[in-house]
Structures are given as C-alpha cells and as structure tokens.
C-alpha cells in the first residue's frame, strides 16, 4: 500500500493560456482606441528621444492591412528585446509620456490582425520582429524571435523610425476598415485628441490625408476674460482654465466647445464632459446638474506628470479613473475654479427668463445671447498665450435699464399672430406686437 503520509514535491501549472490572455486583453477595447494606443507609442517615442524638430506619423488602413510608421527616433535594441513585447512593460517613468501599463501596442496588434511585422531603426541598430500570432499561440514559450543587423541601415540624412504592419486582418476589422464613417471618425478623434501635438511638431496622416489640428482657443476680450490656475498636487501638475463664451446666432453644437475638456500629458482624455465625472452632479459642494443654460461654459484641464502612472487614467485612456485620490483633489480644484462662472450663468438666466421651458425655447432659436455685445466680434487667444489669472466675472454692458412684461393670452390666437408675423417664438410675438404699438402711436424711444 502506498504511504499516504509521505509528502512529495510537485508543481501545479498556473501558466496563463495565451488564447485566454489575448481574449481578455482585447475584449473591452475599441479598435479606434487601439489605433490611438499605437499613436501614443509614436508620440512617446518623440518625447523619449527628446526630439524638437518636425516629425510625422503615417497611418494607412485598408481591407487588406494596417500600417503605422513614424520617424520619431525608433526603438532602442535593449528596450525592444526586453520590454516592448512584454505584457506589462517596465517602462522608465521620467518623461511626460502617454504609455502607462505597457499593454497598448500588444493589445492593438492582437485586436487587429494575425500577422505582425515590426521594423525599427534608431540609428544604432536595425531590428525586425515577425510575430505570427496564430503560430505563437500554439506553443507554451512566450518568447518571440527577432532579427537584427550589426548596425543601422539608415543613411546620414534619414531619421530613426518604427513601422508596424499588421496583416491577416480579422474579418470584423476588414469590414470596419472599409467604412468611410470609421475612417472619418478616426480622423476626427485624432484631430482633437492630439490637438496639442498637432499644433506643434507632430503631423499625422490617415491614408495620405493630413489630420488638421484642432485649435484650442480661449475667449479673451473686454467683456469676457478667462480664469487660469496652476497647482502641483502629489507630483502632478494641474492647470485649470475656465471661461464663458456666449456665441451669437444658433446655439450649434461644435466639437469640444461645451463642458469640460480634460488632457493628461497633453493627450485629450475627456471631451465635452457634462456628467457627474466632472462635477455636474447637483450635489452639495459640486456643480449643478448640467443644463443647456451652461452651454456657454467651457473648462479645460491639463494634468501632467513625468511619471504617467500618477495620472488618473483608465487602461484604454478613454476615461478617467474617478476613484483615485489624485482625481478627487483635481475635481475639487475644477469645481472651485468653475463655480463663480457657473453661478454667474445660473443668475444670468434666472434674471432674464422666467422658466426653464422658455429658456429651452430660446436655445433652439439661438437667442441665447442676452447681453447684446454690440457689434464687436468676440476675440480669442491661443491657450499658450494665457497667463495665470484670477476670476473676473463677465462685464455687464452699460445700457438702458430694461424690464420684463408678462401676460397670458389664449393659445389659438397667439399661434395665429405668430403665423402672421412669421415668428417662431412667443417672445418674438410679444416684442413685435409691442413695437407695432410704439410705431402706431408714434411713441419715441428717447
């Protein structure tokens, strides 16, 4: 009989299965965010290599393949061999880069296709990795073979580069890459997400078409002045800029021109945020619940750190990790900075309008500018030119004292008059009929 008391040493296999690993890793991330991760790597290469001159990232996507190439300096041999392909890279954190977890590139590759070719030359060494996922998945070894040559292949005038080509696209990806709407939305996302870099020394092309930078401007004129504060919180530099920007004409929705826009290490993370995440919760100590009367408010936040792990980011960089102590502090700062302007907007509409319904009616008509700004055009300045400024509330135009008249009439007759006047709101009906009386009776406005 075997001796059951005897203890024998054995091992349990706890190696992760690659297939499960790939499945989990690629499941909750969108293809667009994956492509953005690859762009982040190129931008990081620019930052890590301390480049100052104009560089370029070119993305080409078709039904047969994906290709991203940058001339942002290339990847150093040791870094490529030991870190770049590891799931969870140990990245040196001493520059304001965008990569944090060291999974973005791998996740993107695996999400998009089955065969990946990475070529890079940093001016010291040329390396080429041929990563066939379908083959790699079949063996337990997690290593990926790659080729190098003794030195660099670059001529004196050529710049260090990295090129990732992905072939054998997954069927769903093939279909997506053929969609005009996907390409347009990718361009639009790149346009605003990397606006800071596009306005400087990095250009991005998608299928040979240049992505134009989105201009981040701040309203700054005699009537409206922005507030800007800067503060260091636990190794993170936070800059909050808030301003009010009433626009004449229809209250059209324009990209990035409502609510909060939040950047982490200069990459846009949240755009047009109007939810509880940025304080619009209506709870005590926070901002009121978002309403169309706050469309004139804009807030821009820059959260920067040389140690990107301190930034309150989620893994796909598509949102903020609200549960971090640092974001709690940042949010407090945002609310404090925005408060006077948000209160001003609440008061402004309270005074002039009687009910929320009426405000909504006038929002649709675009009559939101209650303080007529004369004929002067609003002025804007670039965000870099803005110095630190304390809050100053929008100046009330000195004008004639105004008052409100209210009365009610039967709806049917009001509609008739409205049609007759070709007016679109009750407010206009009131004003026009009043003006008619002035004219008929010859009452002068002096």
């Amino acid at each position, binding site marked *: 009989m075997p001796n059951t008391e005897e203890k024998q040493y054995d091992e349990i296999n706890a190696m992760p299965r690659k297939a499960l690993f790939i499945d989990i890793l690629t499941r909750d991330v969108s293809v667009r965010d994956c492509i953005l991760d690859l762009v982040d790597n190129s931008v990081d290469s620019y930052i890590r290599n301390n480049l100052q001159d104009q560089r370029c990232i070119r993305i080409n996507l078709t039904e047969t393949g994906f290709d991203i190439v940058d001339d942002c300096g290339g990847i150093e041999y040791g870094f490529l061999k030991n870190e770049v392909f590891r799931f969870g890279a140990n990245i040196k954190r001493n520059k304001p880069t965008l990569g944090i977890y060291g999974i973005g590139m791998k996740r993107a590759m695996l999400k998009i296709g089955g065969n990946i070719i990475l070529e890079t030359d940093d001016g010291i060494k040329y390396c080429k990795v041929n990563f066939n996922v379908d083959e790699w998945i079949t063996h337990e070894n997690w290593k990926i073979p790659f080729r190098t040559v003794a030195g660099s292949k670059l001529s004196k005038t050529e710049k260090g580069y990295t090129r990732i080509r992905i072939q054998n696209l997954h069927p*769903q990806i093939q279909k997506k890459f053929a969609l005009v*709407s996907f390409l*347009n*939305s990718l361009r639009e996302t790149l346009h605003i997400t990397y606006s800071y870099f596009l306005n400087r020394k990095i250009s991005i092309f998608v299928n040979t*078409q240049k992505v134009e930078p989105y201009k981040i401007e701040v309203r700054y004129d005699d009537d409206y002045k922005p507030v800007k504060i800067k503060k260091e919180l636990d190794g993170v530099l936070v800059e909050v800029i808030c301003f009010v920007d009433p626009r004449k004409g229809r209250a059209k929705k324009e990209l990035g021109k409502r609510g909060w826009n939040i950047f982490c290490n200069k990459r846009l993370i949240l755009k047009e945020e109007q939810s509880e995440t940025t304080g619009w919760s209506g709870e005590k100590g926070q901002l009121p619940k978002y309403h169309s009367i706050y469309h004139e408010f804009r807030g821009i936040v820059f959260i920067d750190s040389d140690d990107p792990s301190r930034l309150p980011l989620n893994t796909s960089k598509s949102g903020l990790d609200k549960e971090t102590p640092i974001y709690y502090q940042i949010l407090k700062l945002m609310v404090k900075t925005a408060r006077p302007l948000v209160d001003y907007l609440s008061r402004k509409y309270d005074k002039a309008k009687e009910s929320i319904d009426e405000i909504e009616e006038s929002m649709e008509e675009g009559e939101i500018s209650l303080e007529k700004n004369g004929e002067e055009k609003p002025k804007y300045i670039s965000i870099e030119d803005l110095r630190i400024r304390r809050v100053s509330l929008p100046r009330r135009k000195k004008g004639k004292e105004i008052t409100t008249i209210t009365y009610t009439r039967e709806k049917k007759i009001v509609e008739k008059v409205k049609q007759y006047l070709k007016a679109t709101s009750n407010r206009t009906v009131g004003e026009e009929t009043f003006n008619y009386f002035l004219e008929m009776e010859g009452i002068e406005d002096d």
Partner: protein
Amino acid sequence: MIKESEKRSFESVNYMFRPKKQIERKIIIEILQNLSPEIKLNDYIYIGLGSIYYYDFILIHKFLNLKKMISIDDKSTVRRFIFNRPYDYIKFINKKSTEFLQAFNWKASVILWLDYDSKFDVIVLDDLSLISQNCSSGDVVIITLEARIHTKEDWPEFKRKFGTYVSPKYNKQKYFTPKNFPILIQNVVINYLNADLEYRDINFHKIFSFKYKDTAQMYTLGGVFGKENIFKCKKWKNGFVEFGEKIIDIDVPNLTYREKFYIDSHIKKLKQEIEEIEKNTRQYSDYRKREQVMTKKLNKCTKFEISYNDIKKYISYYRYYPQYYEGLI
C-alpha cells in the same frame, strides 16, 4: 378636411405630367424584371408610397405580377387613398414610413420603394437604419429623394449632420451645388447603409441610380442586400445598370405627338445618321461648334428643327417615353 401643411406633391402636380419620373419607373421595372433568375420575385411583397395615383403599383403588378402590395402614407385623407387603389389587394397603411418600418414583421422578402417627396434629411437616415437592421439577403430597396439645395450657406450644417458619412474626396463645398448634390447624397446614403450593416453579414449593393428634374431635382438609388453582389457578372438587358458611383441623368426633350411619331418611325435611320455625323465631325475640338455643325447636318434629314443633343437624349429613352392624350370619359 385636409390640413394646409399636408398638401404635398400629388396635389400641386398631376403625376401624369411628370414624364421623366414615368421614364424612371419604366426603366426600374425593366431592371427588376431582369433580376431573375438570380432573384425570384414571385413571393415578394411590394411596399411603396403609392400616393393617390398608384402608378408604381400598377406597373409592378402588370410587369412583375406581384399581388402582395402595401402602400404607406401618413396623411389624414385615408378614404381617398383607399378609394383610389387600382386593385383591391393593395393594403393601405396610414402611417409614417418610419412608424411602418418599425412595426413591419420583415418575414417575407420585399421590394421596398421609399419615394419620398421631401428633401434629404436626417429622417431618411432613420428609415435607412430600420431597413438595414431588418432586411435580409435578396431584399430590394429603392429610395427617391428631392436633391435640392436651398443655399450654399447650408454647407456647414450639412457637414455637421452628415459629415461622418461623406468620403474625403466629396467633403468639399464644390459638391454642395445643385448639379453635384445627388453625388453627395448617394455617397452619404451608401456609406450610412454600410456603417449600419457593420455587424451583419450582408452588404448593400447598388444596382442603379438616376437623377431627373420634372419640377424639383430628384435622385433615386436602388440596390439589393446580400453577402456578395450576385449580379456582378450578369448580362443586363438595358444599359441603365450602374454598380459604380455614376448617376444616370434622365433628360428628354418635349416633343409633340407628330414629332415623336416621326422620330420613332425613323429611329434606325436616325441612329445611323448620328453615327455618321459624329464620325465626320471629329475634327472640331470646340464642343459647341461641333454641336452646331452636327445639328445642322442632322436637320437636313429631319422634317423639323431639332438639336442634335435633344435627339440623342430622346433616342436613349424612346422606349420609355410616355404619351399623354386628352380624352372624354
């Protein structure tokens, strides 16, 4: 009582006097007849916006022998729509197209012709979404829209609403002109359909598109849903099938009966004559000059004055050209 706002094209224009629209109908019927044997239409349901004239329904029944037919309209003159049905098996449903598409069970195969008499707008995209979510392989969809631009100042608004679906090559103000607007609409509609079909295993395959102007400029797109374009290698009986981006312009001159009959009875001869004249005027590099010369030469063998362009246009469509008569009933 009919509400003022409900007055639509059928009340301001007698459908009989829209010759180009009638030509389009006949061409489309011919293409539909030609879909077989790849698609057998026998059990298809025809869904259209028959108005009070039901012209498309009459043609569909006569030439495709379909009996399951549904006409949709949301106006309040229900009895009038029902009264005017040319066949009692046409089912009239008093709903907006969007409401109908939401409620329809989509079990049978369909030929769906949404002949809007409204301008291209977001509501059309809502209908397209419902179609692409519910349609099956083999379903035929045709949409007709008014392709008119009010002012070129509307371009930013158009871009804001539909920009995501405009291909970069068309994302330019120069396409926002009355002449080019059908191309822009076609681009948006096809890209929108494809985006909506991203997670399905079928695609939309264009078969034809037309533009014409009886009163307002109209644009029609027709195609079929399926995994692959099963018609790619098919030989068509008429030359109006177009898988690519080209939009065929249906344009015909106004002719008197005598003129029409004259040309019809000399059609072979005139075709030969045109061929000959074209061959003999190749030396003219100036198109206008050449046209003048060709008209002059052509008029030598006709009994009345008619421009070379008009006769060419007529010859392209003579088989479909409608004839209107006044009669006492």
